[in-house]
């Protein structure tokens, strides 16, 4: 068998050897391949163009915003006395919200991801419920939960606090609107960390808390940062729950709404730009940072 095969192989080699070096002459098959290549490039062009149109359509509102702004109008509305107070309120309440989310929801997300809780489906459904509730409904229900005539409201009154039209109320509303986005994102970030790696770190001599700090947290960090920044964007834009329990102090979304109601579309636009400028950098930074972390890990 093997002897019979070798001369054939040698002959095949000779045939290949006879072929002139350099690019192949187009055969019938080659011409067909070129045609299909052209066809393919047309379909490639169509698909790129189609994707571009969809992308532009998604960006439409931002483009509309930028094309309808005039610098003088921006300067005029932003230099009015007290015009930037809502910005300060929004950033402050947003930062407090992020702090609360990170401190309270990170352990919950970790427990959910590691399956440490009994009846995990029940817990997850609970988180999903708060995601699925419309913000306006959250606001209504918050009144019944922390309003002045409730046990919690009474407790707050004893501490000379109130959760109606206060900074505290604003933070509560923002936390409820953004928490599910953070919990679900953080859960999947933790779930992507191999339990075997945590086990290995333990066997190498690290206590569980140290393992969390040296292995779990760094590996989950890009995902955590992404979900934290999404939560930031939600908190910055929180409106439905806020308008019901925290009309005052006024953050940017309510400022846009009241300006719209009082003086019309044109004067509300600059504040929309402010909201975008404040809400976007953190998600963008988180995205760039997590992409970098991924590249670094790939070496």
């Amino acid at each position, binding site marked *: 068998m093997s002897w019979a095969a070798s001369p054939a192989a040698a002959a095949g080699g000779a045939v290949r050897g006879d072929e002139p070096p350099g690019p192949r002459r187009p055969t019938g098959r080659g011409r067909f391949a070129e045609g299909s290549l052209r066809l393919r490039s047309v379909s490639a062009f169509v698909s790129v163009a189609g994707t571009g149109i969809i992308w532009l359509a998604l960006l439409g509102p931002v483009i509309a915003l930028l094309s309808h702004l005039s610098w003088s109008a921006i300067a005029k509305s932003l230099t009015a006395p007290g015009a930037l107070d809502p910005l300060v309120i929004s950033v402050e309440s947003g930062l407090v919200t992020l702090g609360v989310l990170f401190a309270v929801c990170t352990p919950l997300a970790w427990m959910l991801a590691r399956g440490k809780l009994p009846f995990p489906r029940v817990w997850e459904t609970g988180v999903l419920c708060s995601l699925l509730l419309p913000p306006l409904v959250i606001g209504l229900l918050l009144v019944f939960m922390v309003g002045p005539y409730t046990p919690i409201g009474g407790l707050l009154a004893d501490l000379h606090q109130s959760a109606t039209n206060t900074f505290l109320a604003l933070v509560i509303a923002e936390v409820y609107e953004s928490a599910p986005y953070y919990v679900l994102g953080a859960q999947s970030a933790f779930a992507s960390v*191999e339990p075997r790696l945590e*086990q290995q770190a333990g*066997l*190498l001599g690290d*206590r569980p808390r140290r393992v969390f700090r*040296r292995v779990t947290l760094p590996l989950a960090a890009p995902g955590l940062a992404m979900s934290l920044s999404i939560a930031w964007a939600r908190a910055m834009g929180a409106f439905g729950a806020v308008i019901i329990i925290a009309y005052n102090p006024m953050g940017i979304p309510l400022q846009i709404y009241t300006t719209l109601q009082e003086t019309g579309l044109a004067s509300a636009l600059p504040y929309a730009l402010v909201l975008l400028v404040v809400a976007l950098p953190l998600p963008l930074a988180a995205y760039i940072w997590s992409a970098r972390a991924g590249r*670094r*890990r*790939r070496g």
Partner: protein
Amino acid sequence: MLDADVEVDRRAFTVRIALQVAPGERLALFGPSGAGKTTLLEVIAGLVPPRRGHIELGGRVLTSTAPPVRAVPPWQRRVGLLRQDPGLFPHLSVRDNLCYAPSATPSDAELSSLAALLGIESLLAAMPARLSGGQAHRVALGRLLLAHCDMLLLDEPYTGLDASLRRTLTQQVGSLVTERSVPAILVTHELVDAQAFADRLAVLDRGELLQVGAPDEVVLRPASRRVAELVGYLGFVPSSEIVAGVHPERVIPGAFGDRGLVLTGVVKACRPAGAGWEADLSIGDAAATCRLPDKPPASGGELVVTVLDPPYFGVDGRALSAVPRLSPRR
């Protein structure tokens, strides 16, 4: 010195194992998949609690279910575990992986001599994603060595690597274990790997230690028919009350009555195997497979072979200590 005596419940059976491993000794745990090998390692590492048991390592009691009850957590055991997945931390460079353990504080000279020993000195700055399978395993091994573990547990670490690399790594681990004089246990379902590594071979089946002995002794003198089956005996030829075990690699062609049992069989099938041939013989009612250097006669042909010094088993499946004299049979 590791002294373990544990019972762990599994779904189908209970793992009951008592064994000692001396410092610097290399024990290979050999057995089929699902025999409870990995479970034993996880119990020693403290990842799985035993139902009953006592584990002592170098005078420290790690686990004791009898009073005074003790269950030292994994991070205080100083037991190194190497699995098939090397488990390098992807966010740390090779250097940081090597120095991960809190107890690993090597000087630069120490680190570079270990890296040179393992052949990874040019990779210290690389990220784990860049490493090949063999390199990743060397780094994982280096990390265990720098952690100054009191014991090494190797859970089929080199499955999936090619044979020559497996051989090199196994030898490297073996010499390092001897040098550091820590006890080591290798779990494998490849007999050749187990023999290449071990001073002592333990055969485990369905949670029970069937035989512990020298790596050649277990194969040449299996304690029972079940052990013989596990270490590769493919034929059992009965003779009145007793059965002779035929290992394919312990068969030579021709009749040499002074070297073992002479059998005359009929060739049922034969096929090339490596540089030689493998033939299925039928000997009376029994069947046996043997490896031969030359091509045997075609199917239906008669073949006389000698099984070199075969083990004999009684009706209960236990090995007979006295080797009987048998007349050649067909």
